[in-house]
């Protein structure tokens, strides 16, 4: 009878799918089996935009971490422990970051995560990692609030998440450093501030402004632009009539380049100083000759002046990666290496064996990590920020970035 058969069908479908569910797990188990006997395999997670507009930066991060892991395995950096990476694509979207964070937390072999690139993504990940005591080291987040709490500017610094670290230098260092450079080295006293309303730009301009006025400089005017806009003529006019002798720009080169171009086209030949968001060859390409005389600060010493950095560049080349390591390659390598160092410390403290749940121990060990990395000495202060405060000013001369000055921020 037809009615009964419907029941039969449903029963079959139900049991079939439930069986499938039950058995679907073999894949993930066997996937992480890894190599070698007697050696524990742990995973370093990577979260970065591997696709989309920012994929060049994200893939650079992934490859650099991969290089760190391969190097550690080759040199047997932590005896008895083999590292592997698991890279997840966050598409530069906070929602995806949240999903990735839970996934990495769920994989018990993950002992630390490198990433993310975007601070908006970091906001959704931090707490999930923190709840699981899983260390997260960002090579790129620069907003001070991530480590020092939302009220850092008013002086009440409070670390919100003990598991969050970063090798990137915060805006709180880069902005003031640029202010000192402009005021003392260049002798410019009147600034016009522009930011592009993204977290990075706003943060940078804020810290620059504080330091610059403290030094005795004056702010001739300030404007904010919408990221992605093309017509900056109102901003240019405001700058022109303000009588400022230079422009400080917080943001990235896609906005900075047309601004400096339109500025010079209007006959306002004052330099633009920006952060590491401007320090990119594309800036010069887009702005053309208008970029000559502009400056950008960037974190760390120039690659050619640090032997460790040169090794990294050479190894990266030898690694055969198809994409460049990008702006955050060095920091990513150092971030991964910091995790490896922490694991090493944990293992040696535990009689040469990795504890079964090493996450909390790794988190503790992070604060004592201290090694000479690609970007200089890597260690973390009480907020989880990098202690490395070395910065470099680059200037555009004849269409190329050239090193102007390397220094350490103090104060």
């Amino acid at each position, binding site marked *: *009878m037809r009615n009964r058969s419907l029941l039969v*069908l*449903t029963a079959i479908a139900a049991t079939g799918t439930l069986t499938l*569910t039950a058995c679907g797990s073999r894949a*993930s188990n066997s*996937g992480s089996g890894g190599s070698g006997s007697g050696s524990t395999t742990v995973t370093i997670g990577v979260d970065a935009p591997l696709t989309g507009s920012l994929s060049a930066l994200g893939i650079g991060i992934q490859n650099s971490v991969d290089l760190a892991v391969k190097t550690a395995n080759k040199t047997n950096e932590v005896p008895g422990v083999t590292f592997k990476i698991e890279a997840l694509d966050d598409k530069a979207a906070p929602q995806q970051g949240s999903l990735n964070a839970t996934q990495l937390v769920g994989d018990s072999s993950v002992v630390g995560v490198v990433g993310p690139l975007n601070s908006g993504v970091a906001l959704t990940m931090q707490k999930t990692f923190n709840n699981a005591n899983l260390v997260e080291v960002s090579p790129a987040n620069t907003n001070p609030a991530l480590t020092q709490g*939302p009220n850092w500017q008013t002086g009440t610094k409070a670390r919100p998440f003990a598991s969050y670290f970063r090798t990137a230098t915060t805006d709180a260092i880069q902005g003031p450093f640029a202010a000192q450079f402009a005021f003392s080295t260049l002798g410019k006293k009147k600034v016009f501030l522009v930011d592009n309303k993204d977290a990075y730009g*706003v943060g940078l301009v804020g810290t620059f402004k504080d330091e610059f006025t403290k030094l005795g400089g004056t702010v001739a005017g300030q404007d904010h632009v919408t990221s992605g806009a093309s017509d900056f003529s109102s901003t240019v006019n405001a700058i022109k009539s303000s009588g400022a002798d230079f422009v400080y720009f917080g943001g990235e080169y896609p906005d900075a380049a047309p601004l400096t171009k339109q500025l010079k086209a209007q006959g306002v030949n004052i330099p633009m100083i920006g952060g590491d968001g401007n320090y990119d060859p594309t800036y010069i390409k887009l702005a053309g000759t208008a970029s000559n005389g502009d400056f950008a600060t960037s974190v760390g010493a120039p690659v050619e002046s640090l032997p460790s950095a040169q090794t990294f560049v050479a190894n990266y080349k030898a690694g055969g990666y198809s994409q460049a390591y990008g702006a955050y390659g060095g920091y990513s390598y150092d971030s991964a290496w910091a995790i490896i160092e922490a694991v090493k410390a944990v293992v040696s403290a535990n009689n040469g064996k990795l504890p079964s749940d090493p996450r909390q121990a790794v988190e503790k060990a992070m604060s004592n990590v201290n090694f000479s990395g690609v970007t200089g000495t890597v260690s973390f202060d009480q907020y989880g920020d990098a202690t490395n405060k070395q910065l470099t000013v680059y200037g555009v001369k004849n269409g190329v970035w050239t090193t102007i000055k390397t220094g350490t921020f103090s104060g």
Partner: protein
Amino acid sequence: MTDTLQIRPEAAAAPKPAIPLPTAAARAVTAAGAVLTAASAFLSWTYSSQFPGDLTVTGYPGGLQWITFTGGLLTLLYLLVGYGAPGLRGLAPGGAEGTTVILAVGAAATTWFTLIAISVELGGLANLTTGGWVAGVASLLAVAGALGLPRDGQHPQGNRLGVLLYPGKRPELRPAEPMPAVLEVGVVLLTLAAALGVFAYGVDTSYAELFAGFLILTGFAAWALNRSGDFARLGEIMQRHRVLASVGAFVAAGLFPFTQTGGSAEANANLGVSILIFAATALGLNIVVGLAGLLDLGYVAFLGVGAYTAALVSGAAGTAFNVQFPFWAAALLGAVVSGIFGVLLGAPTLRVRGDYLAIVTLGFGEIFRIVVQNLDGTSGPNVTNGAIGISNVPDLNILGFDFGSAHSFGPFSIGRFANYFELMLLFTAIIVLVFSRSANSRIGRAWVAIREDETAATAMGINGFRFKLLAFALGATLAGLAGTVFVHVNYSIVPDTFQFAGPTPPNSAFLLAAVVIGGMGTVSGPLVGASLFFLLQAKLSFLHDYQLLLFGLTLILFMRFRPEGIIPNRRRQLEFHESQTEGGQEGPTPELRTAEA
């Protein structure tokens, strides 16, 4: 009841099978193929365990082999139905032969997908073992046999879709006699369990290949069950037990986190809650788009209004107002504020011209993000903390239940995201209730009337402006409501989330797609559309660079070829129930309004 319908209206004489075989031989070939296909899943398909799922094991299936196995069994099942096997007759009221063809092709598709994936990823056909070849050949054998089966169903002439129509269309079905109530209840429960199982399996697929294989087979199976008439039968039964079915569906959904165990449980619960937020928001949009026929292209901004409102009164550090509302008050406030924005935006726009709304909402979506970015204390009053966003939004605590930590219920333990999943499920239930009840009321009829023909609706005494504004504001309110949960799930909120077309849901374009692709004007359409859409983009991340492109093309193609979406217009069901008192407002069909020309 007057039965004006025919079981098989004058269909053209069924065409001949593609492969001329005696029926018995065709059945035998199909059966052999199907059995072999299923059996081949127990063999090793490849040498290397490099391919995800480890298909090297002989003795039991793994990963994608399970999909092939299921495909083979389903083919066999419907072949037996067509053969008239005892106890199975009537399983395919719309015809078993066409169904068998679809399933055989589906099984072959997944199998060959797997084989090709192995060859491509591991580099060459040499990576396939004999077992793999057996599977491939067997699945093709089943297809060949199925193509020799006599053809049933309706075969309309001269359609462009060509090969897609080979299985024929399902004939109109006479409603079946009701079964004993106990049996029917059993069927309802089992159906829900099966749906939960399929969904949970799909969410839990841990690598893209498995998800793709799963999707292929699920797609073909859904087509087959629609063709066989089983969906129609199930629909009838569900209709008879409407309350049980809808309550049961929510209970089944609520059980989802409990089906998730192990390390990926929280990740899957997070995926689940994200899908729910996306789906619930899409359902709210469906009131605006599907019922009232208004195009809202900045809908995610209303989600944002709700989310920011909730974040501002959540007591998160660093917000402009240092207050902490209880969640019910925050949720209500978020919904109301969002609704007010809806009215402010709709009032000047809807009065003018319907299609201005589309561009005004598109503008609003962009402006919302820009305004939120600017309200940071330097380029505007500090309300939203600008681009840095509001972080560290505290977890909810309702009546002592802390959403931030894991809870155990007997042998089960569910974590933070599962807690929020259950909360969001409740919100979804509310939104479903609001949607379906308002749709089947004087208000909903007025909306649909406006959508169908505004002049005629006005002539029936409907105040077009007022009802359009009502729909728009209600949609905004529901999105705001969803937003209040959204912000807590994600701990934080930043302006960049609220884009017209961004990389991940929710954004306005994806919401619209979930509605359009799922089925405008239906309850289940946006839910299915949203789940499918979310899983697609989450699981097949290698497609991400082409995601928006595919998405744009999908919109165009759907509007061109299937404007009613994937959930078929169940209007026809109504024709069986002429005393029917309640019926959902189903989506528009590609009607040509030539009468007016």
